[in-house]
C-alpha cells in the first residue's frame, strides 16, 4: 500500500488529466477523435478509482473500477465507433463557435466550480478531497460542450462525459456510491446509449443528416 501522500498525488494527477481531457473535448471538432478522448477520460477515471481503492482498502471500489473499465473504456467507445461508421459520419467535423471564447467560458466555469467546492472539501476527510472542484468542473464543461455543439453524436458524448464527472465526484467525495446505485447508473447509461443509437438512425432517416439544426423548428411562428 502506497503512502497516503503519494496516492493523493496520484489522484491529483488523474484529476488534472481529466480536466485537461475535458478541455480537449471542448475544442475538438472531429467526432471520431472526440470518442477517443472520451475513452481516454474513462481510462483516467478507471486509474483514479483503482488508486483510491488501493490506498484506502475499499474492496467495492474495485468492482466499480472494473465496471468503469468495461463500460466506459471498452464498450461505449466501441459502440460509438461502430455507430459513427455505420452512419457514415466518421469524416464529419463541425464548425465550432468562437473557440477562444468557449475556452474562456470554460475557464470561468472551472474557477466557479473550485469556489463552490472549497467549503465542501474542507468538510470531507477522504484522500481525494481536493479533487471535488475538478469533478464539478468536468460536469460543467461537459454541459458547456452540449450547449455549444450541434451534432447529435456530440450531444451524446457530452452527456456521457457529464456522467464521468459525476462518477469522479462520487469517488473523490465519499469513496463511491453504494454498489446498487452504481450498477443501476451503469445500466442506465448502457440502455440510453442503445436508445440514442436507434434515435440517430431515425433522425438521419428523417433529415438526411445528424445536425440538430434540422430539429429546431420546435416553435410555431
Amino acid at each position, binding site marked *: 500500500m502506497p503512502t497516503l501522500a503519494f496516492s493523493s498525488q496520484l489522484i491529483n494527477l488523474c484529476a488534472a488529466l481529466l480536466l485537461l481531457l475535458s478541455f480537449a473535448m471542448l475544442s475538438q471538432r472531429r467526432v471520431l477523435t472526440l470518442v477517443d478522448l472520451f475513452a481516454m477520460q474513462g481510462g483516467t477515471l478507471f486509474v483514479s478509482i483503482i488508486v483510491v481503492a488501493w490506498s484506502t482498502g475499499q474492496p467495492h471500489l474495485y468492482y466499480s473500477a472494473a465496471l468503469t473499465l468495461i463500460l466506459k473504456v471498452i464498450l461505449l467507445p466501441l459502440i460509438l465507433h461502430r455507430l459513427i461508421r455505420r452512419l457514415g459520419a466518421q469524416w464529419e467535423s463541425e464548425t465550432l463557435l468562437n473557440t477562444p471564447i468557449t475556452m474562456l467560458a470554460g475557464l470561468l466555469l472551472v474557477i466557479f466550480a473550485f469556489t463552490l467546492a472549497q467549503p465542501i472539501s474542507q468538510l470531507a476527510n477522504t484522500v481525494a478531497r481536493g479533487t471535488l472542484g475538478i469533478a464539478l468542473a468536468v460536469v460543467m464543461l461537459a454541459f458547456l460542450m452540449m450547449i455549444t455543439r450541434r451534432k447529435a453524436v456530440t450531444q451524446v458524448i457530452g452527456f456521457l462525459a457529464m456522467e464521468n464527472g459525476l462518477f469522479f465526484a462520487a469517488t473523490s467525495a465519499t469513496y463511491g456510491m453504494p454498489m446498487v446505485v452504481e450498477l443501476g447508473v451503469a445500466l442506465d447509461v448502457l440502455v440510453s446509449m442503445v436508445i440514442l443509437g436507434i434515435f440517430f438512425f431515425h433522425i438521419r432517416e428523417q433529415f438526411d443528416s445528424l445536425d440538430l439544426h434540422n430539429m*429546431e423548428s420546435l416553435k410555431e411562428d
Partner: protein
Amino acid sequence: MTGHPTDLISVTALACGWLAIGLLGFIRPRSTGWVAHGLFPLGAVLGIAVTALALVALVQPAETLILPLGLPDLHFQLRLDALSAVFLLLIGATAAGISIFSAGYFRSGEGAAPGLLCLQYHLFLASMVVVVIADDAYLFMVAWETMALSSYFLVTTQHRLPEIRRAGFIYLLIAHLGAIGLLLCFGVMQGGNWQFTFEAMRAAQLTPVWASAAFFLALLGFGAKAGLVPLHVWLPEAHPAAPSPVSALMSGVMLEIAVYGVLRITFDLLHMQLWWWGLVTLGLGLFTSLFGVVFAAVQTDMKRLLAYSSIENIGIIFLGVGLTVIFHAFHMPLLAALALAATLYHCLNHAFSKSLLFLSTGSVLHATRERSLGKLGGLIHRMPWVAWLALVGTLAIAGLPPLNGFVSEWLLLQAFLFTPDLPHSYINMLLPMGAAALALVAALAAYVMVKFYGVIFLGQPRESSLSEAQDCGRLERIGLLWLAAGCVLLGIFPVPLLALLNGVSRELLGASLGSQLQHWWLLAPIAPERASYSPVVFMLSTVVLVAVVVLGVRLFYHGRVRKASPWGCGFPLLTPRMQDTAEGFGQPIRQIFEPLFRMRRELPSPFDTSPHYRVQVEDHFWYTLYMPIAGWVRRISSLASEVQQGRISVYLLYSFLTLVALLAFAL
C-alpha cells in the same frame, strides 16, 4: 351546544343522499325515463326534507360536528346555526320545486347524457348544502369549488355550440377569480395562527387594516359569484346558455349562497365591523341594482333579461348588507336587525320568484323553441298554466303587495328611512338619497317585469308557429305551483317567518325584532304608529274591492255590451308584428340612461328599399375593463413566449444556467 347534533347529522345525510342520487343516475345513464321520473322526484323529496330540517334547526341552538375525514391535522368541521339554517331552508325549498320541474323538463336528445346531468345537478345541490354547514376554511373551499365546477358543467350542457363554451369559460374565469379572493381572505383571517377552522378565525384578533383587507377580499370573492358590478359579466352570458332549471338554481340559489358567505364572514368570523365597509358595500349594491335594472329594461332575450334582473336583486341584497353593517357599526341594534331581516327576506324572495320565472321561460322555450322576445307574444291563450304562474312571479319580483317582493323592499325602505338618525354628519345626509335610488330601482324593476310579461304572454302571437305551443306537463306544473305558493305564502305571512329569522339577528348582531312581531297579521318593524303593513288585510280588501267592482259591472252593464272591431287608424294591413316590441318598450330607458350603455345603431336611409334597423346595446365594462386586461395578459404572455426559442442548445443553456444559479445560491 347540546349533546347530540341530530339535525346536523340529518342534514349531512341528506347532502349525501343527493350525492347518492347523482351516482344512481349512472345505473342507466342514457335512460331519460329512469333519471327524470325516478331520480329527480326523489331529489325533490330530499329537498322538502332539507326544508323541514332547516325549519327545526332555526329555533334550536347551534350544533357542531367533526367528521373523521379531511386533512390529517384538520378534520372536516360542520356547524349548523341559525344563519346556516336560513340558507338551508332556501336551498331545500327552492330545490324541491326546481327538481320536480326538472323531472318533467329534461328530455332525451338534449346535450349531455341524462345520467351525467343528474350527477352534476345533485352534486351541485349537495355542495351548496356543504358550503352553508362548513365550519372550516378547507371544507368551505372544497365545497365552494365543487359548486363552481358542477355548475360550470351544467352551464355547458350543450357544449357542442361554441357560444355556450365561451359563456362557460367566462363563468369559470370569474369563478376562479373569486376563489382566489376567498383563499387570500381566509389566509388573512387566520391571523397568524395558521388555524383554518372558523372557530379559530372567530377568536383571531385582527388589526383594523387586516380586517378591512379580509372584508374586501371576501367582497371580491363572493361578489364575483353573486354578480356584483363589475364582476357581473358572466351572468348574462351563462344564463341564456344554461338549461332553464340550471339557470333557476344558479340564479335563485347559488347567488344567495354568495350572500351567505358575505354575512358569515362579516358578522360571524370577523370580530369588528367598520362603518365605511358598509358604505362601500351599500354604494356597490346601489350601483349594481341600478345597472342591472336598466340593462334588463333594454334586453330582447328573455333569459338575458332575467339575468340582468338577478344582478339588480343581488344589488338590493348587498345594499341591505351594507346598511346592516352601518347600523351595526354605529351600535343601533334594532335597526341593524331590521336591515338584516330585510336582506335575508329578500334572499328568500329572490330564490322563489326568480326560480319561478326562469322555469317558466324554460317552459316557453320548450313550447316555442324561441328565446327572443321579438318572436313571442300572446302565449297566455296557449299556455294558461305557465302564464298565470309566471304572473305570480312577475308581480312578486316587481314588488307589488300582497306578494313577497313588497315585504322585503318595504322593510329595506323602512330601514333606510331611519338613516338620518345615524351619528355621523355626512352619512346621515347622504344615505336617505339611497332610499330614493332604491325606490327608483323598484319602480324600474316593475317596468322591466311589465315588459317581460306583456311581451311574452299578452297581446297577439307575433309568429304563426306560436299557435302550436303546448302548455307544460303535469310535473312542470307542480314545480311551478310549489314556487308560486312560496311567493304567496312569504307575501301573506311575513311575520311568522320574520320571527324565525330573528334567531339569525340574535346570533349575528345580538339584537332582535322580537317585541315588534307580536301580531301575526300586522307587520310593524319599529313602531306601529310610524309604519305598519298588514298583508292579510290588504289582500282581503283587494279581493273584496275586485269582487265588488266585478259584481257592480255585471249588475249594471250586463247585456248592454256591444262588440265591434276597433279602429285601425285608417291602416288596413295590421299584423301582429306591429305590436309594441321589446325594443320599443325599452326605448325610453335606453334614451334616459344612455351614458350607461355602449350603443351601436344602424339607421336605414329614407330611400332604402329594404330597410334594416339595427341597434346593439353593450356593456361599457367589456371595453373599459375586461378588454384592456385581456390585452395585457396577451402582451405578457407574448413576452413569455420569447423564452421559447425552439433551439435545443438554448434549452440546454436554460438548464445549465439554472444549475449554475442554484449552485451559486447554495454557495
